[in-house]
């Protein structure tokens, strides 16, 4: 891509109910109009779509490919290249254990293993009952607080396997959406 290109198609200005039947696509359309359908906005748009839908499925990827006039293979390629995009519905609660260097030195691996065992959820996956998603992150930049865990958006400092299990246990026991 040597020249900056823009998809020329402009959908209708004001979308009432979205033709797909899912009005959340209106938010995507609005963003695309704002950036003038610039194809280099693909990653930004994927971020937005994941924020809105929680994950990216084939339908969403095809929709973006169509809207930005990009080959679906390229959209799929970009989405799968980057770690932060996910293609499965996340669980009710999200637990991210930082496995950066400082956290590793202070025993983050143990924490991941224990949570994975006790809650029967694979690292990087979601429990079968959909209650918990366990992820690992390569450094969230809070190394002074190692080891760090992010539970439903809350950064928890100086974790031990026990405190981490307690925290996750309490969140899962409370049930419902985070």
């Amino acid at each position, binding site marked *: *891509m*040597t*020249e*900056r290109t823009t998809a020329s198609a402009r959908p209708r200005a004001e979308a009432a109910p979205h033709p797909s039947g899912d009005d959340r696509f209106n938010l995507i359309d609005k963003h695309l109009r704002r950036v003038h359908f610039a*194809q*280099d*906005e*693909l*990653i*930004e748009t*994927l*971020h937005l779509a994941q924020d809105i839908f929680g994950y990216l499925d084939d339908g969403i990827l095809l929709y973006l490919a169509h809207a930005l006039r990009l080959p679906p293979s*390229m959209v799929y*390629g*970009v989405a799968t*290249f*980057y*770690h*932060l*995009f996910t293609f499965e519905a996340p669980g009710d609660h999200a637990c991210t254990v930082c*496995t*950066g*260097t*400082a956290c*590793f*030195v*202070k025993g983050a691996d143990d924490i991941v293993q224990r949570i994975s065992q006790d809650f029967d959820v694979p690292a990087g996956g979601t429990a079968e009952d959909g209650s918990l998603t366990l992820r690992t*992150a*390569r*450094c*969230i*930049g*809070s*190394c*002074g*607080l*190692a080891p*760090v865990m992010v539970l439903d958006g*809350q*950064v*928890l*400092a100086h974790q031990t396997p026990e405190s981490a299990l307690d925290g996750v246990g309490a969140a899962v026991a409370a049930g419902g959406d985070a």
Partner: protein
Amino acid sequence: MPAPIDLHEVSERELSERYRFPWRIKACMSTACLSAGAGQAFEGMEQTIEKEDLALEARLIPTGCMGLCSRGPLVRVLRRGVEEVMYQAVNKEVGIDIITDHVRDHKPVETNLYDHDIPFFTSQEKIVLENGGVIDPNRIESYVGHRGYQALERVITRMAPEEVVEVIRASGLRGRGGAGYPVGSKWALLAASAGEDKFVVANGDEGDPGAYMDRTVMEDDPHRLLEGIGIAAYATGATQAYIYVRAEYPRAVERLDRAIRVARRKRLLGRNILDTEFSLDVNVRIGAGAFVCGEETALLASIEGRRGIPRLRPPYPTEQGLWGAPTMINNVETLANVPTIMRKGADWFSSIGTEGNTGTKVFALAGDLVNTGLIEVPMGVTLRHIVEDMGGGIPDGKAFKAAQTGGPSGGCISSEFLDTPVDYDSLRNLGSIMGSGGLVVMDEDVSMPEIAKFFMEFSMDESCGKCSPCRAGTVQLHTLLERITSGIGTRQDIRDLEHLCHVVRDTSLCGLGQTAPSPVLSTLHHFRSEYDDMLVSEEASHA
């Protein structure tokens, strides 16, 4: 178009504001302190000031990182004419006590006082972080009140672009992203390249686990970065700029977006900046979690909305970068140095640090240390000074084993080299690199082959897959390390490991692959006996 900001007037107003309140309470609201409960403490102090009717006496200011993250949340209390006081571990109750006891009754809260007259603070020389813990990152006036945007104003109204490049060249500033390329030369390359559209890119894709200085600059002093970008663009003739930020740093994105909006309104960005001919458009681009995007050609691909896959250089980005146009990529910390250099001069900057390694470097101290957090020190101080004096040594009476610098591209330095000065060249001679400035200290309990395996797993995950030495080599290296650390390795495995390290280092396409073997090679070099101890005994392997 609105009238441009009057920097002089705003800064005068900020100064007089500073003298209006007998008490000023600065509360660190950076990520580390927030996760330790700074938000609740701030609320508590705010309400108590209201309740005690102290609103005319005391002013509460949310600030950026004060550095000593392990003691957070930190609060500084400044009383006019009296030495400042620092509090550690300020929760909501302590926050309320600070207002009622210290501010109202003039009796400091003894339990949480922190003596900040320690090397951790006194050995620092702050340029990049000079506003950390001082200004309110969300108010442009606060930055202007600390001489912000003065350099940009002077540069674009009174200096020719070539003069600016010359000052940067004379300062000796080297790229803070890790490789240490002379910044002045890079600027001159972009200035010399032909083209209507030129780009400046600030690299805030701080992927090296253990480093978070770029995040701190972007979150706590976003206008400093914008000013640095403005000066760089003016000097090189660029009209568009991107700031590439890791998606893991949502607060940095939010604050930068806001800072850009405000700066545009104040005519410090956009068309005809401060009514001059100079125009610059700045946009934020968010990464999506790929370490390789720290490599400049991969970063450019990612900004263009594609997969972050590096390409061969030359052509260098300064010839062919974004959409084929000349592009210069500077690290966030590098650009954050620029406003101060332009304000204080090249001679002042080059008087700090050592010959060939001028200025300061920010390090993120982490791992087995008493004091962890962010420090900024002159280049050339010794590792021993950083670890033992500033970091306060190893906790629990344990022994120092290694300092890891440069993350997955760097290496481990053993205790016998603690007296090495910290600069680009000395660290490279030890088989490590400066990198972006992560410094993880490990005590005697840490196994070096395990650390090497940890980093190899990282590089293996992050390899983009374009070239086979890196794609396949890192997997094989990881397998060998797995064998060795699980106790079934043989002498031949170590020989294979070493050989393959050299192949991957010498034949990979980009920096990720070329440096991926460094943690293995440096631990093999400094801690070989640990590898040997893990091997199966000779008899067993023959049996």
